[in-house]
């Protein structure tokens, strides 16, 4: 690795780069899935490559390759410089990076069981048992399960002297039952939709989730939804389960606080943000109960946004984003920190893999649990008339992250503090700031879960990134419900 690093950095600086960094990465994946009693996917992949990022003539260039020969590395580094010099043809000011101390460091995400030491037979046996349990429920027409492991080992070196070696393990697992009848397809998922739960953990995540124990209930709920009443339309108090609130945070807090969006750097694809710079420390983003942080540190938990250093060598940090309702922080990088008068990056620059340029990404954007003890059932008991919604089914938000609409897999009516009839096709919509200001209760730490969102898309070429979101069930007053089906 030392050789590859020095070939890349030496070539870049000799060709005129004023700054250069290189990321060399060794990735391994295992992806397994089943569908209706059969193995759907059984695949293992590995990749090894590197990417070189440079500043030359005051502009950025980046090149990546899987050719790790000396000639290949040097040609790629030279190409990065050539690209940077072309970038300089359309620039206004030279790129300047906020200072950062160059460190030598070593970090591995904590795990108890290396998932790659578990056998594929063992993995598939569990998935097929779950699959069988789901299909044992009459009316379930499709059962799907999945299990994924990833090990990412990366060496980061820079012309400033950084030398950082990090290894991260990720485990993801989940399943879904579908029921089709008449003119309707209903679905229930566990522990979350779109792939289940994902964390920077080893195989121990699998045993923590009581997967098999919940399968029959999940199958039964999918079938029950076919006969459930439709969710009414109107203004209601709603309680969101922690997984749905996690996605609400992702879309209506996590994305708008990305400073590159705010500065227009993502305008062509992911969009911009309603959170213009004048709103920092002036906007009342939410009610007094809303406290949200961007926390990449290990002590926050094994989220998909947990690391020791970001992909430009900045240490993991905790940034207060919303403090007692007040908007207090953005996600920043070494290039963008100065725009918010910060003297240091917030440490959020990450790349999907070594062949992609790192960009500002969410770390773990989490709402803090309520300080007073409050269980979900107590929250429901304190609600006179409302709707409890669980597990995301659809999500959409405008390109400034303001108008949103979410659909959930299942809802339940709340009457006089009791969860009553099941409701199908629940959905809610609103405007970001009004919505967060309507939050009047959040459950305490016992109900708080650090969810993983494994497939967040951003950038051109598009990059897929895992982000973490801790959340507990919370209540929002007078929310617009049901417009997803209005007029259809």
């Amino acid at each position, binding site marked *: 690795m030392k050789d590859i690093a020095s070939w890349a950095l030496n070539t870049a600086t000799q060709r005129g780069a004023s700054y250069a960094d290189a990321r060399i990465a060794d990735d391994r994946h295992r992806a397994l899935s089943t569908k209706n009693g059969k193995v759907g996917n059984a695949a293992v992949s*590995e990749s090894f490559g590197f990417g070189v990022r440079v500043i030359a003539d005051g502009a950025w260039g980046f090149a990546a390759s899987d050719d790790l020969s000396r000639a290949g590395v040097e040609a790629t580094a030279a190409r990065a410089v050539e690209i940077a010099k072309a970038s300089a043809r359309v620039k206004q000011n030279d790129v300047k990076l906020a200072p950062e101390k160059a460190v030598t460091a070593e970090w591995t995400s904590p795990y108890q069981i290396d998932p790659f030491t578990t056998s594929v037979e063992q993995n598939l046996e569990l998935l097929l048992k779950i699959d069988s349990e789901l299909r044992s429920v009459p009316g379930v027409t499709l059962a799907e399960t999945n299990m994924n492991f990833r090990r990412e080992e990366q060496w980061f070196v820079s012309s400033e002297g950084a030398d950082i070696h990090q290894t991260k393990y990720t485990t993801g697992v989940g399943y879904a039952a579908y029921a089709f009848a008449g003119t309707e397809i209903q679905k229930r998922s566990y522990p979350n939709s779109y792939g289940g739960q994902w964390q920077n953990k080893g195989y121990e995540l699998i045993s923590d989730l009581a997967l098999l124990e919940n399968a029959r209930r999940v199958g039964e709920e999918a079938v029950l939804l076919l006969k459930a009443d439709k969710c009414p339309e109107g203004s209601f108090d709603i309680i969101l389960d922690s997984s749905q609130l996690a996605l609400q945070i992702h879309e209506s807090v996590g994305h708008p606080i990305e400073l590159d969006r705010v500065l227009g750097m993502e305008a062509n694809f992911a969009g911009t943000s309603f959170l213009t710079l004048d709103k920092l420390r002036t906007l009342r983003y939410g009610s007094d109960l809303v406290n949200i942080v961007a926390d990449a540190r290990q002590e926050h938990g094994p989220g998909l946004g947990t690391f020791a250093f970001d992909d430009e060598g900045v240490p993991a940090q905790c940034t207060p984003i919303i403090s007692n309702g007040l908007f207090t922080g953005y996600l920043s990088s070494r290039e963008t920190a100065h725009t918010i008068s910060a003297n240091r990056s917030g440490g959020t620059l990450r790349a999907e893999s070594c062949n992609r340029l790192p960009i500002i990404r969410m770390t773990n954007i989490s709402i803090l649990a309520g300080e007073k003890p409050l269980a979900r059932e107590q929250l429901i008991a304190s609600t006179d008339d409302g709707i409890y919604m669980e597990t995301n089914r659809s999500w959409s938000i405008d390109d400034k992250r303001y108008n949103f609409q979410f659909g959930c897999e299942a809802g339940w009516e709340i009457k006089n503090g009791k969860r009553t009839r099941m409701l199908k096709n629940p959905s809610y919509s609103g405007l970001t700031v009004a919505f967060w200001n309507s939050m009047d209760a959040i459950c305490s730490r016992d109900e708080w879960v650090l969810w993983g969102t494994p497939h967040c898309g951003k950038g051109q*070429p598009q990059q897929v990134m895992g982000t973490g979101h801790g959340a507990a069930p919370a209540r929002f007053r007078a929310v617009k419900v049901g417009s997803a089906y209005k007029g259809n």
Partner: protein
Amino acid sequence: MLSRDRAADIFERIRKHSTADEVEVLVYGGRSALTRFANNIIHQNVAEENYGVSVRTVFGGRTARATTNKFDADSLRRVVDTSESLAKVQHPDPDLLPMPGQSEDVRATQAVPSRHFEQTAKVTPELRAEGVKRIVSIATRHKLTAAGIFSASESVEGIFNSRGLSDWHTQTSAEVSVTMLADDSSGWQKANCPDVNQLDAGNLAEIAARKAVESAKPHEIPAGKYTVILEPAAVLDMVGFMFFDFGGLSILDQRSFLNNRVGKQIFGSNIEIWDDVAHPLQSGTPFDGEGVPRQRVHLVENGIVKRLVYARATAEKMKHSEHKDKVGPVASTGHGFPLPNELGEAPMNIVFGAPANPKTVDQMIASTERGVLVTRLWYIREVDPYEKILTGMTRDGTFYVENGKVQYGIRNFRFNESLLHMLSHVEAMGTPVRASGEESFDMVVPPMKITDFNFTEVTKF
């Protein structure tokens, strides 16, 4: 670039090392470069060259896949060993067919035009910068801010198997996307083509700029049902959500909105849809994930879904299923994904039929008493899988039309619209063009004028 000869040599080395009953190798990769601009400067500029080899082995009906991007002898031996050890612990798959050979009857004969253009392969960072400079100069002239991309790539894709199948495809691709931003409005255009010389970055920038200027100071009009004129990119991003339901396996799995609807009139009689990889405006690989040539399939005829697409195994399974008499002709069509997979197949080269009396967007506007002109849609997601209700937002150029004229820009709408409803209310269509969006793969689609499109909310910009 990785050559076909080198790929064939890699396959031979893998085949010799493998002890499996059958072995299949996919080889893919290429060079790509993308210049990204925003705030009237180039702010990101990247290039990469990567290749991969993916090995599928079969032992007595058991199959699995392993992939690597390392091509040295040890790595190739290891990827074969990994694939084999993974395959051996699978349960036998009763639906798994022997790999296809080169001489099977399903081999197609349709000619696919060359999609490799030297001028695209040779695009330099300097040339991309010059293209961006031209776009930025147009932005500056209109007092706007430009953001977007200019990319070019050259790729290869090959498949080889132990039954003698050998297929190889090379192509190039170039893309320009431009967003023009004003204080309270924006405009957008995007185009993609295998031949970079067919892209006119300046023209795209001028159109995007005009949209940004003309939609300035947007009015807020109430949500409700409107006649809409969807430009091709907006049509593409909507209809792209239904084509995964046109695979035979989605019917067998009962997850398709076409369950019990094949053969029925579900769209207006003016809707004709093909999947046609050989269409001159299409791009992509002319064979599927098993190396079976893609057939031209007439999916929708006069608004009636007549045919589905099939991977080989799905076709065999369908022939013995309870659905076999209700889904039209059942045969492998060359639309399967690489095995093993859960999705089966999907049409990926969609071409809408040209209407008998095509209308331009301007003609559609001129014939509209009250309606909305939509440039682009955004963040579309499926709300209801069977009624195919989609939600999403308008973006980057939404206009109010009245008395046959564009009146002014309007604040963006959220829609909740069923594709069944939408494609049953197409009042007019234009000539289909190759369109690029963000939610779906590129297609050949027309602009459409649609009545009673369901806008449910309006946002604040």
